[in-house]
């Protein structure tokens, strides 16, 4: 190829690159609009409405006393759960060899605990500590303040156990990504040559240090913002105290409590920014090739065992605690309206998240400013995802109350959908990144050359290729939306029957009969839907391989 021809093609590519396709432009603008809808009210919520109201002396000190010990409690809980969950996730990921060649059951085993609510493991295992159980009665029989101290220690233990069993799959996924980049022969070499026992594990830890650190930080930040298990366990942390402070703040005073939560906002912002950047880089980076190693059933025992501890055993404990099998059917009479409302909300959230995934994928997959905007959107969504739900909910309601005095947004389901889109927008953003990564660069160039960058072109090519990942993201976000509590109870208009609110009441007022029935239905439907998500992800992986082969 001559120099002149090179120059011509280079200039042509440059011209093509500078012209962003209309569909990508629309997607980028939609993403910008989403950011404005979500972030503008949040910013507005921090600004005092009436400066005179802010002059009440000591108002925040009264409702949110001494944040120092609260932050310390939060950090200790985060460290404990981070270490335990990462340890378990690392062990699972390593023994299953990074889940290479994993089947549907393995996908389900990893996904299931994450897809089910954070409080499920905790409330299930807490049956062992409830009044009437051996442990509960023993604690209750202890004299005076000792019963209180031991009871609180048991509550903390169960809360840490519950959150560990909820979050270990996240660690497993992060470590797995690291393991998949390792040479497959390394496993055999380690088995043959390395030391046994702790020395071998230390070698593994050093080998996987980046993903272990990433897991510790990610899980730690999620725990910092998680309220329900620690709240039900009566452990005062910053997230819970801010929640109570928001609950006790007079109208117009919520900004004080929102500001007091600055450590949570800061952590969410830093983590979201950093991880968002990494996700965007992963989307457009080199596609790693991973060799396939079959995993024996024996090697998978730890995986299935961990999932059983996270989901199956707690659910069984809850169902076993049900004293009357009729409670399972009565659940529908008592909570039927709440379930219907939750399903409507989950469907709306799932559809929006899938649309967000399309917009993100198209924007990042394009060039120039649209791609930059898409990458920025990923960062923002991850920031919002890391922020505690109660902060997101309160901020949105406060902000929208000021933007929309008619109550059009805040008086119906719109504010709930908005809050859930903010909470789970990160799933759409990551799915968008996965869409870009799924498409082989050569295939993408072919599509561009063919002019298939319009909406119709995308529908005929990219949409079909990415249908599994889009459906999986919509389904996953819908499942999480269905059982989300923190943001829901803050934004929900009074009188709305909602499953999340009912479950919070079941937990808060120890209505184990209703909680057990709800858990049985949630776990049952969760297993089915997780199987569908696992199958969709396997289809997506197959499509990715096909995409590589076509190119």
């Amino acid at each position, binding site marked *: 190829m001559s120099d002149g021809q090179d120059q011509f093609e280079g200039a042509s590519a440059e011209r093509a690159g500078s012209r962003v396709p209309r569909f990508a432009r629309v997607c980028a603008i939609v993403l910008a609009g989403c950011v404005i809808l979500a972030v503008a009210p949040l910013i507005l919520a921090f600004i005092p409405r009436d400066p005179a109201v802010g002059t009440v002396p000591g108002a925040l000190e009264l409702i949110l006393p001494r944040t120092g010990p609260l932050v310390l409690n939060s950090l200790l809980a985060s460290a404990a759960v981070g270490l335990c969950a990462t340890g378990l996730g690392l062990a699972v990921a390593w023994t299953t060899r990074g889940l290479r060649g994993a089947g549907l059951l393995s996908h389900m085993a990893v996904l299931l605990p994450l897809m089910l609510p954070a409080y499920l493991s905790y409330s299930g295992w807490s049956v062992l500590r*409830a009044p009437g159980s051996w442990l509960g009665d023993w604690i*209750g029989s202890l004299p005076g303040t000792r019963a209180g101290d031991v009871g609180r220690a048991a509550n903390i233990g169960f809360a840490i156990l519950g959150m560990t069993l909820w979050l270990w799959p996240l660690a497993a996924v992060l470590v797995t990504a690291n393991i998949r980049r390792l040479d497959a022969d390394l496993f055999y070499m380690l088995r043959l040559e390395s030391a046994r026992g702790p020395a071998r594990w230390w070698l593994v830890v050093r080998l996987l240090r980046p993903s272990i650190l990433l897991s510790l930080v990610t899980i730690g930040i999620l725990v910092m913002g998680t309220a329900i298990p620690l709240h039900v366990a009566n452990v005062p942390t910053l997230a819970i105290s801010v929640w109570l402070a928001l609950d006790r703040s007079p109208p117009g005073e919520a900004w004080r409590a929102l500001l007091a939560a600055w450590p949570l906002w800061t952590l969410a912002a830093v983590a979201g920014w950093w991880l968002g950047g990494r996700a965007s880089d992963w989307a457009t980076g080199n596609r790693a090739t991973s060799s396939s190693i079959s995993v024996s059933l024996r090697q998978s025992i730890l995986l299935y065992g961990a999932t059983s501890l996270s989901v199956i055993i707690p659910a069984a404990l809850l169902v076993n605690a049900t004293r009357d099998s009729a409670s399972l059917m009565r659940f529908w009479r008592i909570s039927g309206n709440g379930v219907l409302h939750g399903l409507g909300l989950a469907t709306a959230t799932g559809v929006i998240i899938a649309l967000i995934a399309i917009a993100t994928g198209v924007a990042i997959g394009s060039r120039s400013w649209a791609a930059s905007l898409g990458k920025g959107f990923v960062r923002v969504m991850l920031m919002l995802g890391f922020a505690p739900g109660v902060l997101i909910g309160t901020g949105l309601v406060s902000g929208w109350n000021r933007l929309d005095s008619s*109550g059009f947004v805040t008086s119906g389901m719109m504010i709930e959908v908005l809050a859930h889109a903010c909470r789970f927008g990160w799933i759409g953003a990551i799915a968008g990144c996965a869409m870009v990564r799924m498409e082989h660069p050569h295939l993408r160039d072919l599509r561009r050359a063919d002019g298939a960058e319009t909406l119709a072109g995308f529908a005929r090519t990219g949409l079909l290729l990415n249908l599994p990942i889009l459906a999986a993201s919509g389904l996953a976000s819908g499942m999480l939306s269905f059982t989300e509590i923190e943001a829901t109870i803050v934004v929900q208009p*009074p*009188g*709305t029957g909602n499953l999340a609110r009912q479950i919070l009441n079941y937990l808060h007022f*120890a*209505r184990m009969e209703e909680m057990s029935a709800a858990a049985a239905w949630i776990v049952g439907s969760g297993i089915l839907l997780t199987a569908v998500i696992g199958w969709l992800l396997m289809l997506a992986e197959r499509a990715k391989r096909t995409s590589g082969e076509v190119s």
Partner: protein
Amino acid sequence: MTAMQMGGREDPSREPPTCLTRAPSSSIACVAAALAALALSGCGSDPETDARPLDVVATIGSVGIWPGQFATPRALDTDGSTLWVIDKAARIQRLDAQTGAPLSEWKTPRHANGMPVGVTCAVFDGRPLTFVADTHEHRVLVYEPGSDPGSEVRIVAEFGSYGTGPGQFIYVTDVAVVADPSLGVRIYVSEYGGSDRVSVFNERFEFLFSIGEFGTGEDPSRIEFNRPQALVIDEEARELIVVDACNHRIGRFTLEGELIAWIGSPSTAGRKLGQFKYPYSIALLDDGTALVVEYENARIQRIDMRTGRGIRTYGKPGRGPGELVTPWSIAMVGRTAFVLDAGNNRVQAFRAPRPGQPRATEVASLGAMQAPDQKGGR
């Protein structure tokens, strides 16, 4: 000394931001509030329950932790002139029932495990006493208020300990006291947490017997409770009324604990007239009817205690005047009913229906039922 004279403090900085707010009287405000409430609830009115805001005569308190403010209040009773309110900050407040002014406040001795959810004012052995169901400390605290509502109160007794044995409690919810001419003083204590029952004590706080056990109430011939949330004594009928919250029903018992009848049932839980969804409290009226507070339905339902039929509902979900969010308790001072609107952090007062003289709308909703004045009041 009148209640009005007792209320109020000289230090303006101690005054609550919102003490007692009169309900809006202008029709425009009412229409606006109704429209806002309609929008908030997200649905139209229910013809069967005639969901409308309460006809509020006064609102006491607002969200906050200053005196006269509440942080998720969960217990309410009255000694006739003052209201006793306990919130999730473990504060017990006494407020003037006429003005809403805060008179005194203090905290329970221990509250790290959780807060009380029940309070009962009673005259015991000729002395006014207040029984606090110290839920998460598995005991009942007995306070003796001073002669002046603003003066210090002191704990004169406490009874109960953790356990499921006789005289022990898991989570105490409420107390009812009666001085019966034939039985003497009886103290009834309800609890939940797996040992759901009503324990009965004598005047020396000695355990006598218990009523019921945990159960989901499918068999109405059995005395089963699932969170008996509130107790009240019908002294004239010599009955113990138990609000069986999670079984969505109300039980009528003799003072000896024999079941007379259930009103409502788990299988009929709902929001139609005559149905309950998590009834949490009850106030008896003089004409054989009662006002039942429903936590989940966010309303108050007037029922006929003898037939169990629903007469009318009051209130609807919302944040506006006369609207309710997770109402928890109710107490009567004369003909004024005070509703603990827990989710809105306030107490709303409304005029209870006149005994024996149902309004035109009530008669219409009665259908085939006899009007209360035709049955003869108590």
